[in-house]
Each structure stands twice: as C-alpha cells, then as structure tokens.
C-alpha cells in the first residue's frame, strides 16, 4: 500500500517556507529516526475531525491530554482486550493519529479478564457513577475558575509579612497558578474518557446487533434509535429560546432593544435602565453560567471563541428566535415528540424481530446502550465547551499579564507557545521582577518567536498535507477509531484517491449517511461562524463542523455537509430532526467544494456529488 500511495512518515517534504516548524512542538510529537521502524509500521492519518487547521502550539495541550487519557483507559484501566491507544504526531503543523497495533495474544487474554470485571461493573452502576462524575467534573472546573493570577506588586503588602511571613510570594504564586491550570487540564481529560470508551463500545455493540437482525438498516436509523432528546449539549439553544420568549412576554420595549442593531453591551446597558429590562437581564445572568460557556466551534481551539466572549453570536440568535416566535414559529425542540418518535421507531423494529431470543438480545444491547450512551452526548458540553471555555479565559488572563509587562504584543499570542514554554516566559518575567528595578527580560526573543510562528502557521495553511502516512493495517480494534473516524476500507480507498487527486479533480466525496434524503442545490461554503450571515435561504451548507451556535442556520438551509463529525454530531442530530439530508465527516468538503457549485447530497448513502462547478473562482 505504501508503494501505491502513502509516503513513509520521514519521507514527507514540507515547503521551504514551512522549514523549522518542528521547534513549535514537543519533541515526542515529531517523527524521528530512532523510532522509524515502529513509526513506519503504523498507519497514520490526518485527523481532520479534531484538527482541521494547522495546530497552534498551546492548543495542542488538549490533544496531549487525550493521547494519554484515551490510551490509558484502553490499555491499563478498563482494558478493552485487543485495543491499544491512539498515538499522535505532527507534520508541517498538521495533526496525524494512529490506532496502535494490538498487543500480544497473552496480553489480550489477560486484559479480557480485567475488562469483564471492571467494565461490566461500570455498566451495571452507570446511573450512580454518572452523577458522581458530573459533580467531580464541575468541581474541577470551578477550581480552575478560582485560580487567582497575581499581579506582580512593587512591594508585597504588609499582611503577607506581618505578623507571620507568608513564606512564598507573587513569583511563586504566578508559577503555581499556571501549573494548577495545566494539571486541571490533564485531570479533566482523564475524567473525559472515564466512560466514553465504554459508551462507544455499547453503541458499537448495539449497532452490530441491529445490523445482524436487519442487514439493510441505515446508519442514520441506528443513530436515531440511540440519540437522546434530553441532551445537555442542546441546553444553550434551549435557554436562548426561553430568553427569547421571556423578552416577548416582558413587552415591546425589551423586544425592541434586543432586535436593534446595538452592540450586545449597549443592549444590556439600555435594558438595565428600566424594570422589565432588568428582569430580563436577571434571567440572562442566571443562565449565562454555565449555558453560555459554549464554544462557537468545536471547543478545541482558542480562536473559535465562546458565547460568553463573543456575545454578538448568542444575541444574533436571540434576535432571529424573537423574529421566528413573532411569526408564529416554534423555536424549541419538541423534546417529548422526539422521545416518543424514538420510542416508536425502536418498538416497530423490535416488533419485526422473529424469535424471542433475538428480541431479548436486542433489548439487552439496547438497554445498555441507551443507559450509557448519554455519557457520549453529555460529556461533550461539560468538557469541550464549558471547561475549555474556562481554560481559554484563564489563559487569556496570563496573556494579559504578559502584554502588561511587555513580554508579548497581543493577549492571544500566548497560544503561539506550547505548554512547556509558557513556564519559561513566566520564569523570565518573575526573575526580572524579583531581581529588582530596571532588569531586562528576553521579551524581544519571545516576541520574535511569536512573529515567526505566525508566519509558519500561515504557510502551513497554504500547504496540503498527505491524508495518510505509513502502512495500512490489517485490522483495527480501537473503538474510537471505528466510531469517530469511521475507518473502513472505503475510507482508506478515499484517502488513497486523495493522495493523487487535486481538490478540483474530485467530484464525489464520501462521508457518513447522517440524515436521510437526497437533494440537489447550491453550495455555500462557510469556514468560520462569522461568515454565517452569508448563507441564503435554500442553500446547502458546507462547513467544517457545526455546534449549537450554528443552530439558527438550519431553518434556512436544505441540506448540510460537514468535514468533521459522525452520526451523532450536532449537524447529524439537528438535520434528522428538521428532516434535512446530511452527510457528515467527509474530511475534505470545504476544500473541494466551492460556494456556488451545484452539489447533490445523498444522505441515504453518505455521498456528496459535485454536479456542476461554478465558474467564479
């Protein structure tokens, strides 16, 4: 296979302007001579799902954290017998992953014993365990919020010295604060996988069972059977809908302000001037935390922003919700109807099963899946959205400190340094502070580095990395790899095609058949949320991924195509609810499709076809 298409990891050549990219990242993320034999034997593929863009050095931390945590649950904790971890590398700032080959047969047998004991126990007691999980996770998030980032005072205040000296001071506080943030991230990601591997396993088990009984069943139908209505991830939207209704019930003055063209801060200012307005603000403040701690993107990258720091986003939705309510439309998801429909769907399939034994097996597999799959749906809000938002906010506090002391030019430049480098900047700063007056730092060095890295990341954007590297494996056992990345023979074939084909030569793209239906129409390619107002009624949305911030656009479009996301991604769920065809997880749609192209979205088969290229380039 390697001969046919995929280069060996060390064979990849990056363009001239990308030279030196390696120094941005930890050394173990770089393919290396001394690991060459092992590295060439594995199959590495570009993870467009989690990292579609060149990787900012600091943002890599969440990946560093999941590499450890995911693997550890598979190999050392719940011990999914033939599964090992998912390893990561970077090439030219792009993120590659690999499901590590299975362990020896002896290890598999040993793991099977442990798996049976440990995993079954977790399935058995899941309800109770989840409650404990959510509590400890939210406590962890709160503890990060409480981490104070000290300023560096000219003199430590009296009370830290008299009557008893505190013993450690602002230099230490600042270093410790950063370490605490980092530790919390690692801990959060260990928590993140606590039940995730098991919930994916339960989903795959149920999907296998259903497919044995109904060989022709579509992926999207299985998805519909499992998807829950009461999903935490939808809460932000639901809260917005509630705020929209509240505004209308409070009278025309509130509505008028919210619908005006003022900035969000000005709207809040205006509202605070009268009773009904204050009442609305009160409700707004109540739901803001945690429900506005939702990323405008996937939650993985600092540049995506969250509702709390890009208030224009929720306020824009609020405006469209108010409009729609005034037109008599229903903006809330009808949870009961969704639940009822799901129950009916499952019941009707169940009735088609002929033997009692099979029906029993179906019930058992479904029961376990329904119980634990909520974890897959709910953890997403708490970890990737709520917690990451807190983290990015905290990091920006450090960023502001750096700017204040001239270490960096811009707050967000902090994300140009990897997580191991930040302590160096902190140490440089506190050293100079401790040494006394007029002691220089190496700020110029850091600033220069930041500038160079901006250029490297920009250069990486213009480079198309190979979709895969190394050797195609004979088998894959790792549940995430199957579930999230959907590694199938077709997918691999697609990639091989991608090695040789240029984007303009591709006319058919495969992904997940996420929501049924076939429709043809004009494509609108949206790379970032702030471009979303460009979407016209009746167009087909083509985007990297969606999340609740994108919700209002679904009433305008007639189909959706995403680069990233499986059958239970936000786009898949919302499209199924609205009855729009959707193909998700195509990997390359936003590169291959151009706005104005006529495309056909086949949500039954998971195929997007470019019917006609638009002339405008």
């Amino acid at each position, binding site marked *: 296979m390697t001969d046919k298409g995929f280069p060996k990891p060390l064979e990849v050549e990056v363009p001239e302007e990308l030279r030196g990219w390696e120094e941005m990242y930890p050394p173990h993320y770089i393919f290396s001579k001394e690991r060459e034999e092992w590295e060439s034997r594995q199959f590495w593929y570009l993870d467009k799902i989690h990292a579609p863009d060149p990787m900012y050095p600091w943002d890599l931390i969440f990946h560093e954290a999941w590499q450890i945590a995911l693997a550890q649950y598979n190999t050392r904790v719940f011990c999914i017998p033939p599964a090992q971890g998912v390893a990561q590398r970077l090439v030219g700032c792009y993120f590659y992953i690999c499901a590590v080959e299975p362990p020896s047969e002896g290890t598999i047998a040993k793991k099977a014993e442990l798996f049976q004991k440990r995993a079954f126990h977790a399935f058995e007691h899941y309800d109770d365990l989840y409650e404990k999980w959510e509590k400890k996770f939210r406590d962890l998030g709160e503890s990060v919020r409480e981490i104070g980032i000290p300023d560096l005072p000219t003199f430590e205040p009296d009370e830290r010295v008299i009557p008893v000296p505190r013993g450690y001071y602002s230099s230490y506080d600042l270093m410790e604060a950063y370490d605490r943030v980092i530790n919390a991230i690692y801990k959060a990601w260990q928590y993140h996988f606590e039940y995730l591997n098991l919930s994916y396993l339960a989903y795959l088990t149920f999907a296998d069972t259903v497919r044995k009984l109904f060989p022709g069943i579509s992926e999207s*139908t299985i998805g519909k059977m499992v998807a829950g209505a009461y999903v935490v991830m939808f809460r932000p939207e639901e809260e917005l809908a509630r705020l929209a209704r509240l505004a209308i019930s409070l009278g025309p003055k509130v509505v008028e302000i919210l619908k005006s063209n003022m900035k969000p801060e000005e709207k809040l200012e205006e509202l605070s001037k009268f009773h009904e307005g204050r009442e609305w603000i009160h409700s707004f403040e109540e739901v803001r935390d945690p429900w506005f701690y939702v990323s405008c993107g996937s939650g993985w990258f600092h540049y995506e922003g969250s509702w709390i720091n890009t208030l224009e986003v929720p306020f824009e939705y609020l405006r469209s919700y108010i409009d729609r309510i005034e037109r008599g439309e229903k903006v809330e998801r009808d949870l009961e109807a969704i639940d009822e429909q799901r129950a009916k*769907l499952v019941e009707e399939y169940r009735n088609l099963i002929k033997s009692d034994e*099979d029906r029993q097996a179906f019930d058992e597999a479904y029961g376990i899946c329904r119980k634990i799959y909520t974890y897959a749906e709910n953890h997403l809000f708490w970890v990737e959205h709520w917690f990451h938002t807190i983290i990015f906010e905290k990091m920006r506090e450090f960023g502001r400190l750096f700017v204040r002391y001239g270490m960096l030019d811009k707050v967000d430049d902090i994300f140009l340094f990897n997580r191991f480098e930040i302590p160096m900047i902190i140490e440089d700063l506190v050293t100079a502070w401790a040494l006394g007056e007029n002691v220089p730092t190496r700020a110029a060095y850091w600033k220069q580095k930041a500038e160079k890295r901006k250029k490297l990341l920009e250069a990486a954007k213009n480079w198309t990395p190979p979709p895969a590297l190394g050797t195609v494996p004979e088998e894959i056992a790792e549940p995430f790899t199957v579930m999230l990345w959907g*590694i199938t023979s077709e997918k691999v074939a697609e990639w091989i095609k991608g090695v040789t084909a240029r984007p303009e030569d591709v006319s058919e793209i495969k992904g997940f058949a996420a929501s049924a239906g076939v429709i043809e129409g004009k494509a609108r390619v949206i790379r970032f949320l702030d471009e979303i107002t460009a979407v016209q009624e009746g167009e087909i949305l083509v985007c990297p991924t969606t999340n609740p911030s994108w919700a209002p656009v679904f009433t305008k479009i007639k189909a959706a195509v995403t680069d990233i996301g499986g059958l239970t991604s936000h786009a898949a769920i919302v499209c199924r609810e609205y009855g729009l065809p959707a193909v998700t997880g195509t990997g390359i749609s936003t590169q291959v499709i151009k706005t104005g192209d006529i495309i056909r979205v086949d949500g039954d088969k998971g195929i997007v076809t470019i019917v006609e290229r638009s002339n405008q380039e």
Partner: protein
Amino acid sequence: MSNKNRYIKWFEELDKDSIPKVGGKAANLGEMINAGFPIPPGFAITIDAFEEFLESARRFGKKAKIVEIISKIDPKNTQELEDTSAFVREIIEATPVPEEIVEEIRRAYQELCRKIGIEDVAVAVRSSATAEDVPDASFAGQQDTYLWISRFEGVMKHVVKCWSSLYSPRAIAYRATKGFSHWDVSIGVAVQKMVNSRSSGVMFTLNPTHGDESQIVIEASWGLGEAIVSGSVTPDRFVVDKVTMEIVERTVSTKLYWTVYDPDKGSVIHGEVPEELREEPSLTDQEIIRLAEIGKKIEKHYGTPQDIEWAIDDDLPFPENVFITQSRPETVWSKKKKEPVIGKKSGYDLIMNRALTRYKVPKS
C-alpha cells in the same frame, strides 16, 4: 351494483369466503379491494354461470358427449390428451351461452366502462379456479389469462375460453391421475380493467437480498411489467425503510426497452424507450412511498411477507393511479426456518464479543 345479479359479482361484493362462489382468484381480488388495496376495478363471473352454461350444454346433448370422451382418456398418452382437450374445448366454445348470462355480463361490462369513463375499456379476462382441486399454485397459472380485451364481444368470447380451460390437457391429466371427478370441478372468471401502465414492476415486502423484513424493495421500469419479468431490462431499484418510511437506497438504471399497449393495433408492442426517459427514475418519490405504504398494509393483512405486482396507470392522477395487480406470499425467505440470528446472548455477552472484535481492513 345490484344484488339481483346471479351470474356476476362486483369485486366489492366478494371476500375470501367467496371462493366456492367465484373461484380463488376473483375471491382474492374481492378480499383485496375490501381490505382497501387499490386494485383495478372489475367483476367476477360466478361459478353458477359456468354451471348454468354446462347445464344448457346438456340440452344440446353435448355434455353427455364430453363425459364419454373424457372418461375414456389415458392421461399418460400426451398426444391423445392434446387431441381430446382440443376437441372438448371446441365443443364447449361452440355452445351458445344462455341469454340471461350474456345479458348480465353485458350490463356489467357496460357499467365498468361507464364508471371508468372509457368506452370499450380494455380488460383482462382471467380464469378463477375453485381451490379444492388445485392444491399447488403453479396449477392455477395453467389456467387462462387474456390481456387487453376490449369490446363486449371480445370479453364474452374470452369468458367462454376461460370456462373451457377447465379441460386443458394439464387439467384433465391432473384430475385423472389424482382420481378427481371431471364434473365436481367448476370455474369462475374475473374481468378487470387493464392498467394503462406508465410504469410497472414488482415489490417485495422484505429485502430479497438478505431477507431483512424491515425493508421494502421496489423494482420498477417504464411501461408494462413484461420487460422486468422477461429480464430484458435492468429495473430501477428503490429500498424503503418499512419503519421510518424513508427511501434509503435508490438505483436508477438505464432502461433501453419497454412494452406498451398500442390502442391502434389493439395489442402490446415491444420497443425502445425514448432517449429522454432512459436515465430517468420510473417512479416519483411520492409513488414510491405510496407503494410502500400499500405493501406494508397488504403484508399486515395476510400476515406474511408478500411478492406484489403493481402498475402506475397513465389514465389517472396520483394517488388513484397506483394499482396493485397481484399479491402472493413471498416464498424464498418466508419458507426458511426462522432460526434466531443472534440467539441466547445477554447484553454482556454481546459487549464482550464486540470488545474482542478487531475490524479487518480489507486489502484493496
């Protein structure tokens, strides 16, 4: 539709208990129409009519002659069987039909034309055997079906042909070997509007590829059903999820040939599909879903998966244009023993199996 009729019954007046009155095929059509399935309209000619006709033959001394000839026959002698059958059928077809019977059939046919709004409407005339002496389904197929018959004279002529089909070589031989009487048998006739098929095909209420009963598979092509049955055309194929009623698969093939009725010639002709239609789906989504709904209903009614023939009538608007022309139990998958697919496994067994699974990546 009057109850005074003795020799004809409208399909609406029949149900599965009408077999002794009109034979199996007509009774089934009545059963279907009363269960709400859209079948082309028509009426049955009762067994009474046939018996009355046979009785009248006695008056001409013909019945005695038939008895004499048939009772002497050696069913193993094929040639003799052929000759005798031809001779007997000739006698029967030359026998005048009693006037009351002719009149009732005439009135019924005229009523049918009036209801449909087409003068001399083309019909199918099919024999409808009583079930007692025809145990195997294939036997029924040996009896006669005449398509695209128009005008009353034509109808009448083919009704008599259906009657005489009781004395086809195969029918005689069958009764002779089984020791059944040649006189206790009887036959009804069904007269039914021909569908002016824009498209037609078959529908299985399970997926014949793997027996998945949660799916309905529809095969469709332009024109009359012959093209699909004879295999001269690869049909379009649509798969509908029986539960969600979504079209989950659609394969539109290139359809080069079709069979259509030519009213000028009064017969069907085989020809090439016009270029602009070849690549087009031969059913609209609306029609696919409508068919699937009907299929689901028929299956539920009979309690077993069905193999259904259907047609879309060009003379009528949607949804009245969707017709079922035949339904029989699906035999391949339904006959298979219903062994459990998964068997006695707990949820944990299933989880364990899955946890041990390695996903093979096929070599390309």
